[in-house]
C-alpha cells in the first residue's frame, strides 16, 4: 500500500467537489436529456465518473479510480442526491469499470488513449446498472444500444479526455509538483 496521505486527502477533497457537481448533473441529465429520449441521456453520462479519471490521473495508484468513484458517489448521496443510496452503487460499478480500464495498462500508462479506455469502461458499469436498476431493460433494443454507445463515448470524452485536460491544466499551474503525475511527467513526459 504505497499511497501517501496527501494522495488520499486529495482523492477525498476532489471527490467532495465532484460529488457536488454530480448533484447538479443529476438534474441536468434527467431534465434536459432524459425527457427527450432515454438514449440521448447517455451523451452526458460520463460526467458521473469524472472523479475516477481525474484522481487516478493525478495520483496514479492502483485502486485510485475505484476509490474516487465510490467516495464521490458517497458525497453525492450525502449531499442529498435524488438517487439516494443508488448513487453508492453507481459509484462502485462506474469506479470499478474505470479501474478495470487502467488495469489493462498495468496502472503504468496514463496517456490520452488509456484515459479514454478507462472512461469508456466506466460507461459499461453505468449501462449495466441502468439496465437492471433503472428499468433499462424495459426500453426497446435500439434504445438500449443507443444508450450504451453514447454512454461509452461520453465516458471516453468526459471522464477520460476532459479529466485529463483538467489535470494537465492543474499540472501546468504548478500545484501538482508533489504528486505522481508531475513526477512521471518529469521522467517520461506523459
Amino acid at each position, binding site marked *: 500500500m504505497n499511497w501517501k*496521505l496527501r494522495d488520499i486527502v486529495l482523492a477525498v*477533497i476532489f471527490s*467532495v467537489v465532484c460529488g457536488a457537481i454530480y448533484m447538479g448533473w443529476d438534474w441536468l441529465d434527467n431534465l434536459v436529456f432524459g*425527457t427527450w429520449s432515454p438514449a440521448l441521456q447517455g451523451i452526458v453520462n460520463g460526467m458521473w465518473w469524472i472523479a475516477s479519471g481525474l484522481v487516478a490521473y493525478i495520483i496514479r495508484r492502483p485502486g485510485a479510480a475505484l476509490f474516487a468513484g465510490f467516495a464521490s458517489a458517497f458525497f453525492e448521496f450525502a449531499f442529498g442526491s435524488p438517487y*439516494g*443510496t443508488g448513487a453508492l*452503487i453507481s459509484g462502485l460499478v462506474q469506479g470499478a469499470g474505470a479501474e478495470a480500464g487502467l488495469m489493462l495498462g498495468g496502472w503504468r500508462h496514463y496517456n490520452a488513449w488509456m484515459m479514454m479506455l478507462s472512461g469508456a469502461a466506466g460507461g459499461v458499469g453505468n449501462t449495466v446498472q441502468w439496465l*437492471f436498476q433503472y428499468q433499462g431493460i424495459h426500453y426497446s433494443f435500439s434504445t438500449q444500444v443507443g444508450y450504451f454507445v453514447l454512454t461509452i463515448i461520453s465516458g471516453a470524452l468526459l471522464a477520460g479526455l476532459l479529466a485529463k485536460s483538467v489535470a494537465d491544466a492543474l499540472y501546468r499551474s504548478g*500545484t501538482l509538483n508533489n504528486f505522481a503525475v508531475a513526477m512521471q511527467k518529469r521522467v517520461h513526459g506523459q
Partner: protein
Amino acid sequence: MKMGGMSPTERSSLLFSVLATSATPLVTPIVPTPLISLKDVTITYEGADLPVLSGINLDIFRGEAVLFLGPSGCGKSTLAMLCAGLIPRAVEGQVTGQVWRHAELERPGSIGYVFQDPDTQFCMLQVDDELAFGLENLCIPSLDMRARMDAALTAVGLSTFKRARHEHFSGGMKQKLAIATALTMSPGMLVLDEPTANLDPRSTQQVFQQIVRLRRQGQTLLVIEHKFEALVPWMDRVVLFNRGGQVVFSGPIRETLTAHWHWLVEQGVVSPWQNPPSPVTSDAQIHPLAVSRTSSETQQGWTFPGGNTRGTGSQKTASSVSQVPAVCATKGERTAFALWDGELYYGVQRVWTGVSFNIPEGSFTAIVGPNGSGKSSLLQVLAGLQRLTSGTVEAYGKALKDWKAKERTQLLSFSFQNPEYQFIYERVGDELANRMVGDKVPAEISQLLAEFGLEKTTQQSPFALSQGQKRRLSVAAMLRDSHRAYLLDEPTFGQDAHTQQVIMEKMERLHEAGSTIVMTTHDMDLVRRFATHVLVLVPGKLRFVGSSQELFTQPEIMQEAHLLADQAVAEEDSDRGSCDSVADEQQQVSSDQWGVVDTQVRRGWTHSLNPPWHLLFTLGAIGVALVAHSLAQALAVFLLPVVLMLAAARLEPLQVVKRLSPFLAFYILYVWSMTAYAKVSPGTPVIHILWMHLSFPGFILGLILALRMLATVSFGLLLISSTDITNLVVGLSQNFHVPPKFAYGTLAGIRFAPLFQSEWVKLRQARQLRGKDARWRAMRPITYALPLLTQAVRMSERVARAMEARGFFGPPADLPQGRTYYRSVRVHWWDFAYGIGLMAVVATLLLVIH
C-alpha cells in the same frame, strides 16, 4: 542525511571538558544543550531548478525562543518544516548537508507545529476527537487521554469547548486549538509558522498571549511571524533570511534587529514607516515575569510612528460621529456610495442590520472590524455582487441596480481577497490583457507588468505565481482600465512589506488623482496611514462612521471592534478575552452534523447500530429491493424504510415528508420517460406524440421505478439520520481493518464539503465582474475548475502535512492496530440481527406481495 562528522553532543561534551578544567571542579557548568543542529543544509523542492534554501548553519537550544524573519518566499517555513522533520517525509524535497536532532525530538509528535491557515490543520470534526487524534498516534491508552486533553484545553483557555465542533470557531480560537493539539503531545519544541496571518488584531493578540505563556513555561519555541513587533520582548534570538534563501544574520533579537533594520527595510521585511525596536535591553528580557508595562511602552514607540501622514486635509474634517446611522459626507461633497437601512441575512443568520452611510467621492475609505463581522459582504454589496436583504444601495447618485452591467464594470473595479478567483486565462500576459495575446504582448501591458515586477512571468500560469505576485497581478488588472471607484477586499492580506508597499502606493496615487478607494483590512497601520474615512463593523451592525482621525481618539470603539492589537501582550487579559467570545461562539458551534442534513434531537435505537455494518446492510437491503417489479412490491419496499424512520430512528413525520419532497419532481421525470418510451407488447394502446409513444403499462413501469428510487433515498435518509460520520469512519478502521490512513484521510477531506459551496459562490461573483469580451471565456469549465481545484490540491497538501506533524505516519497510519482509539466503535449481535432481519423483511415482502 543525518549525522556525519562530529555531532553537537560530542562538541558540547568537548566544550564541557574544556570548561570543566577551567572552572571550579565542584560546580557543574551550565552548557546549553542543542536540540537541533544544521550544518551546511541545502533544500531543493521537487521540480524546482534552484534550491529554496542553501548553506544553512543553525543551532537551536533547549528553552530558547527563536524568531525567523525574512521576505515572503525566502524559505523560512521550509527550514521550520525541515527542523520538524516534515521535509522530506511529508513534503518532497532534496536535502543535503547535516541535520541532527536530539534523541528526544525523534519521537513522533515531539515537535509541535502550528500552521498559518487555521482551516487546514484539523482532521476531525469535534474538539475532543481532534485532541485525541495525536494521542492515538502516540498509542496513549484511551483512559489516559482525558486528563491530557483537559490539561491542554485549560492551557489555551478553551476548556468549555471540549465537546464542540470546531468548524465555526473564530480564527483565533482555531489557532489556540491548534496549539492545544500540539501541547497534548508534550512537544520538546513548538513551531509556530505565521500563526496569526489570517487573524484580526484581537485574535492575533490572543495567540500572542498564548505564545508568551508558553515562553514563561520554558517551552522551546520557533516562531515565524510578520507582525513580530509585540513578540520582541519575549524572543531570545532572531534569524534573518534574505530573498535568496540564505541566513544572513542571526543573534540576540534586539541588537540584531536594530543593527540590521535598514537591511530589513530593503528586503521588504518591514515597511519604511516602521521604527526599529528600542535598542536597550529592557527588563522584559531578563525578567519576563515583570513585563507588561515595559513592553507596552516599547510597543507604543514603534507601532505609532509619526502619526498621520495622510494627504489632503479637506476630507478629514468631514463626518458626523460614531453613532449609527450616520453619514460622513458634508454638504457640497459628492457621494460615491450610499447605503440606506441596509440589512443582510444569509438564510436566517443575520450578518448586519440597520446599516446606513455615505462614502464621499474621492475618499479613501477603510472598512474594519473583527473576523466574521461582514466586512467583505459589505464591500460586495457596494459592488453589486451581493444583494441586500432589504435597503437600498446607491452608486454615484443612482440606485446600483439601475446601472447596466457594462456601465458598472466601467464604473468600478473590484479585487477579491483570493486573487485566483478572478483569473480566467492560463497565462499572465493574457490575463492582464484580458484576451489571448500569446507572445505578442502589447506595449502597454508589458509596461504594466514591469511596473508590478511581473515582466519575467508573462508566459507563466497565473496560478503558478507566488502569493505576492498573484496579488500584484490582480491589482495590475484593476489598473488596466481607469475606473471611478476601486474596491479591494483585504488587498494586503498575507503579503510581505514589499508587496504591501507596491499596492498601497498605487492606491494612494489613484486616490490623489481623485478616484474613490474602498478597502477592507485588519491592518490599523494602513488605516492610520492611508485612510481618510473609516467604517467600523461589529457583529450585527455598523458601529462607527467617520474620519479615521476620530476613530483613533475613541479607544472604546476600537476595543469593541477588536482593533486594538497594539496593547501590551500580557497574560492577564486572555481569560477575559476568551470569555467574551464564549457567548457568541457557543450558539454557533451547535450546528448541523453533515453540513446538509439536520442533526436529530430525538434519538432512536438505530443510533446504536454499528455504522459501517449499517451501511453495508443498507446496501444489501436495497440490492434485494431492486427485484421489486410490481407496483405493490415497489410500494412496500418504499414504505418499509419510511416506517423505520418514524418508528426506529424517531424522526417526525413532517421531517420525513420535508426531506423526501424535493425529489418528487425528479421522479416525475422518470415516470414520464418510462411512460413515453417503454417498450410495449404489440396491440397495447399507445398515444403518439412526436417520436414518443405514451402507454399505460409504461406509466406503471415508471411508477414502479419512481417508488424504488424513493425506497433507496429513504434507506439513505434512515442511514444518515442514525449515523455519526466520525463513528462511521473510525469504525472502518476498528471493525473492518481499513488502514487508518484511508479512514482518517477521508474524514479530513469531508470537513471541506461545506467550504466548497462558499468558494463556488465567490468564484461566480468574481466571474460577473469580467468584461463582456472575456465572458465567453469565463464560461469554460476549465476556468472554473482551475481555481477550485488548485485550492483543493493545496488544502490536501496542507491537511496531510498537518496530520503527519501530529505523528500520523508509520504504524499509527498504516495499521489499524498500530494506534489506540479514543472512540470505541463496537460491533454487537444486534447489528447482525438488524441487518439480516432487514434484508429478510425486504425479501419476505417481495415474496408475499405480487
